[in-house]
């Protein structure tokens, strides 16, 4: 996985829950990820998956991904090509799920300084976000080693395939 992720920002507010990211009625009726992904973020922006450009970034407020344990929430985001989700804070199951499927989820306290469509460069190695539009730098919360080894290998399944064992 690349340590440098660059993309434009799609900005969301606080408490974006898993039913907004992928409504239960789709999660429980569509098992094909390609079809399911067309409904990504539909609860906030019905046209999101059509307009989203692969490689772009999601920036959100506090408690992103609260609600259900559905792994389909980070999965549809990864499937449409979200480079990273940056939020003030994450709900814990969403956070763990993201890491386990290899979708970078980073916490940053300065999200209010980031505007819609800004061009960001997330440097996971150095733990900073560069706002290339405003020429600013923000710290991201340090990712513990236990989590980093899963994320940097592309997720838990990818880790196991590569190392032929679980990280623990």
């Amino acid at each position: 996985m690349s340590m440098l992720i660059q993309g434009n920002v799609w900005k969301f507010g606080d408490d974006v829950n898993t039913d907004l990211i992928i409504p239960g009625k789709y999660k429980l009726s569509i098992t094909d990820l390609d079809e399911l992904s067309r409904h990504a973020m539909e609860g906030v922006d019905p046209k999101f998956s059509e307009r989203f450009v692969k490689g772009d970034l999601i920036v959100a407020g506090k408690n992103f991904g609260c609600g259900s344990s559905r792994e389909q929430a980070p999965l549809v985001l990864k499937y449409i090509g979200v480079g990273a989700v940056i939020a003030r804070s994450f709900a814990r199951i969403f956070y763990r799920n993201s890491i386990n499927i290899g979708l970078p989820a980073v916490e940053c306290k300065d999200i209010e300084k980031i505007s819609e469509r800004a061009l960001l460069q997330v440097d996971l190695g150095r733990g900073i976000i560069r706002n290339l539009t405003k020429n600013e730098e923000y710290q991201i919360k340090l990712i513990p080693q236990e989590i980093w080894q899963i994320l940097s290998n592309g997720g838990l399944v990818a880790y196991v395939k590569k190392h032929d064992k679980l990280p623990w």
Partner: protein
Amino acid sequence: MGKTTSEKIFSKASGRDAYAGDIVIAKVDAAMAHDGTALLAIEAFEEMGGKELWDPSRVFLVLDHVAPSATEAFSKVHKRMREFAFKHSANFYEVGSGICHQLMVESGVVQPGSLIVGADSHTCTYGALGAFATGIGSTEIAAVFLSGKLWFKVPETISVVFEGSLPYMVTPKDVILKTVGTVRADGATYQAIEYQGSTIKEMSVEGRLTLCNMAVEMGAKTGIAKPDEKTLEYLKNLGLKPQTTFRSDEDIEYSKKVEFDASELEPQVACPNFVDNVKPVTSVEGVEVNQVFLGSCTNGRMEDLRLAAKILKGKKVKKGIRMIVAPASRGIYLSALKEGLIEVFLRAGCVVCNPGCGPCAGAHQGILSSGEVCVSTSNRNFKGRMGSMEAEMYLVSPATAAATSINREITDPRGLRLE
């Protein structure tokens, strides 16, 4: 300094002296997945080269979210789960058995001091018996199916204290809605909540299950009620003799303490579209309602059904509204049948569904149309959860739900005069 319940359970499960903030590898006592999460778990298990379960007697697979299946796509999910469960000799619960969380509790696998993970956010329910139980995703549950282990960050603990007796028609659901409204949807993220005080002590284990169930609505990793005589009695009735119990020491520091006077509590309502948008029922009385749901892992147990039946006895669900009842398990359904509650519901004009999640997850048995309003005893009222993005959901207690069904508008149950 002493240790919290969570620190004690993680110390036991990881074999090291664990404190809040530590990342530990811990052995789990059981792992559960249901038809909303198991397919991805089975795929991940096989992709990781899984040949056998670490311990089939500790793996639970439950068909409850869309059970019986409502679509062909879902029938495939059920088929795959059945095949996997039979192949690996896991514990398997067929459609109609009930909701995973209730079944886990009834199975006897949940005991004080157990560490349990489930691929469902409401796994935190089991803390009502003094266990540490938390929700995880499908890929992680697959890793647990393989190894019986997982990494955890030992959480800090928030103390939620209720003192005093609950007034007439004020229930454990109102206690937890009040708590969620105060602590807010992210107020306990990554932390454990311990429910304490005389109100909790007086409360039945069923009521404590309601409290712990909604800990995740505050972002908590789990909710825990201190095991006591009531817990032991409950476990005894399940045919169990718990060996160990863990309780927080007296001299511990909580990350936060929130205190309430239960005797002044009014019935509470979580208003659209957030679980922490909580108001007293008096401020939303009169809101017109199209559907009422009584059930779910929050409020589908005997006490909930008894209270609703007490209100509905000899009454009729008002014309223009449908009242859907789903007992949380087959055992509960049978008890309700024996006590005559099911007859009360049917005579009142309710729809009584098979045990399971009912319409809570928005997949069947009562999907809302745009412009409709639903009053539900479940735990989430997110936009679009039970159907249309333009439908609205209010979360209430079984008493408020039943009172609402006979008036077709949100009703304060305290105004009822029962025979």
